[in-house]
């Protein structure tokens, strides 16, 4: 069961996506505008995945994605839109969306996009745990190799930078932790480690 946000101005689309995913046991939260969704996120709500239309009444989908980046949100976004021009699709992927679906859509398009994006995110978490174990077992060179692979596969994720901070010397630790926090300002592990490091440096 996962918390999923749907941000779409069309009530029929919100209802349809909700119908399809509720039957699969997920918790669905719907928003008619970017502003409504942004308010919820600012309150601290974080979905596992967000379905987002680009064509919105006030703040459009691209501006909304930029706002999410500013807030340091790193959950996967699947675009669901009637806009299908190649430059729009290219721009969306450059901005880091996980998948792009055009309207109208078949239920399997929606569920496949959800499963692929969430699986990729889960794959990331599994690899992070494996690398953390290598570090714990002091297999640092192997861990470093794995972190390099991880950053190639997930360039927008803060985790590789956090893990680099764990294996790097004191001089480079701060740089990596700040990079992780630049990608996700709510990254608790990086924040705590940086605070400890700064406290130690001040003493």
């Amino acid at each position, binding site marked *: 069961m996962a918390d999923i946000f749907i941000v779409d101005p069309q009530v*029929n*689309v919100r*209802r*349809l996506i909700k*119908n*399809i995913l509720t*039957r*699969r046991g997920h918790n669905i939260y719907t928003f008619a505008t970017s502003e409504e969704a942004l308010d919820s996120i600012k309150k601290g709500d974080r979905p596992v995945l967000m379905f987002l239309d680009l064509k919105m009444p006030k703040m459009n989908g691209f501006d909304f994605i930029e706002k999410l980046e500013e807030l340091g949100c790193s959950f996967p976004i699947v675009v669901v839109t009637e806009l299908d021009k190649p430059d729009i699709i290219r721009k969306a992927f450059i901005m880091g969306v996980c998948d792009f679906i055009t*309207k*109208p*859509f*078949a*239920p*399997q*398009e929606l*569920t496949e996009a959800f499963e692929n994006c969430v699986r990729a995110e889960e794959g990331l978490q599994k690899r992070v745990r494996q690398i953390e174990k290598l570090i714990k077992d002091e297999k640092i060179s192997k861990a470093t190799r794995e972190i390099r692979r991880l950053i190639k596969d997930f360039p927008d994720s803060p985790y590789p930078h956090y893990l680099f901070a764990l294996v790097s010397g004191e001089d480079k630790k701060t740089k990596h932790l700040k990079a992780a926090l630049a990608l996700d300002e709510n990254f608790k592990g990086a924040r705590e480690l940086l605070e400890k490091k700064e406290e130690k440096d001040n003493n």
Partner: protein
Amino acid sequence: MPILRGTSKKKGYYFVIFGCGRLGSRIANWLSGTGNSVVVVDREEVAFQSLFYEFTGFTIIGDATELETFRSAKVDMADFVLVLTSDDNTNVMIGMVAKEYYNVPRVLARVTDPNNIELFSEFGIEIICPTMLAVENIEERLGFNESDEE
């Protein structure tokens, strides 16, 4: 033959309906209300006024004789295509394209003239003939059957 017979069970089907008249709009309302993804295609925007407010599908204004309309409706992904315009010639053409060109698993078309039933069946299109249904219904209500005739 029940429309969902012979298809694999999954959560929600993708239906494309050509024609949003009295029949098309009622079917579209029912299918979307039962949790399926439904696309309704019609040449006239005004036809979509027959859809309920609760209709959760998509509408496309388009000419079904153009392939672009099929592409916009993503007919290639459809589990079912229902061809429900009032014109038999249009219906056989749409049904053929859906069946032969896009390999849609189930194509069901409305046939107004019972003389066209054989033509539709030759292309593997399942048919629904309101005239024949009415005839059968009247026969049943009148209580005649073959043994009475003998």
